[in-house]
């Protein structure tokens, strides 16, 4: 017996958590099936509330998006938005490319595996069958005719082995070559990461530029990077009011 308790791995921890919840659930189901019903599952009560909250967030998000869109248009920032909007389809194309490439690579590899498994299973099965026959030979259970036949079939088997193992070699090379997607997709992923970072920076710059002076200090607190001084424009006041609302809603 161990004197000290063994350290529990995170996986064992989660496994234990799963088992305990599953056990609780079974208990609850058994209790519910009995005549004296205990009041309903808390989780069920939580669901409608959660759905309601989600609906609320969706509404607010919709309002914010409209607000942002209109504001940026009025401020003349639509060109920046256009470039951002163009960047997104580009990122989507690239991601689709990655999905396609990795899918094709997986299929190539799995096809190779199927072929390989058929070949190796065949070699194994034939060898096993012949080994059985040779056992009979050594047990002196065969006639001369049978012996000749076994010897001939064994010879034929050996003749097929180099060809089959050669094919297996080709299959393994194919599977290796199918891994080339990693290099191609890695480069594309890097481009997407760069694009995303660039998009984020542009959005942050926009956010800072459209911030009224009063809130600028708070913004600086939240955002790293230089503050851009927006030139005062008469029509900006109205838009700034909208941005005020926007920022207030965002909690700045």
């Amino acid at each position, binding site marked *: 017996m161990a004197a000290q308790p063994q350290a529990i791995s*995170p*996986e064992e921890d*989660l496994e234990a*958590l*799963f*088992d305990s*919840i*599953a056990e609780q*659930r079974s208990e609850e189901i058994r209790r519910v099936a009995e005549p004296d019903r205990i009041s309903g599952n808390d*989780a069920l009560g939580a669901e409608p509330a959660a759905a309601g909250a989600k609906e609320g967030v969706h509404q607010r998000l919709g309002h914010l998006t409209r607000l942002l869109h209109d504001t940026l248009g009025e401020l003349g920032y639509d060109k920046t938005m256009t470039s951002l909007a163009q960047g997104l389809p580009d990122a989507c194309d690239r991601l689709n490319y990655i999905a396609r490439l990795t*899918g094709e690579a*997986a*299929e190539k590899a*799995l096809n190779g*595996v199927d072929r390989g498994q058929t070949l190796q299973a065949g070699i194994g099965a034939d060898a096993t069958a012949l080994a059985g026959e040779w056992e009979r030979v050594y047990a002196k259970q065969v006639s001369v005719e049978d012996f000749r036949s076994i010897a001939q079939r064994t010879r034929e088997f050996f003749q097929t082995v180099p060809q089959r193992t050669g094919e297996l070699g080709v299959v393994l090379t194919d599977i290796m070559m199918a891994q080339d997607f990693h290099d191609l997709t890695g480069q594309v992923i890097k481009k997407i990461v760069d694009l995303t970072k660039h998009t984020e920076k542009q959005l942050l710059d926009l956010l800072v530029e459209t911030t009224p002076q009063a809130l600028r200090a708070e913004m600086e607190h939240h955002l790293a990077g230089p503050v851009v001084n927006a030139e005062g424009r008469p029509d900006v006041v109205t838009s700034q009011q909208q941005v005020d609302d926007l920022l207030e809603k965002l909690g700045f």
Partner: protein
Amino acid sequence: MEAQNLKFLVVDDFATMRRIVRNLLKESGYVNVEEAEDGVAALGLLKMTKFDFVISDINMPNMNGFELLRQIRAEPALKTIPVLMVTAEAKKEDIVNAAQCGASGYIVKPFTKATLEEKLVKIISKLQLQ
């Protein structure tokens, strides 16, 4: 019940993943396997034919794994079917949710043949005790 004749339903929106699970099941001796690409298709198949085991991914379009699990547990004809959930990470909230929805077990991908076998044996032996 002969273990090797168990009829499996593998649910995942990625054809590659379905193929890998099918291959692993085959290597463990389970050759009776059908596939579905999301919860909706899976439910359709489950209602038409008798399955002995469901292995399902979580993130799928149209109907995800949790919703499929809930629907299976809500259907009188299906509620006792063992369901093994496949998660991409060992995220506590996913695992807790799986347990609460009535999953028979969970497995984190990428998984090995040994891990899959271990989970299957654990679930099947619990089944046989009931």
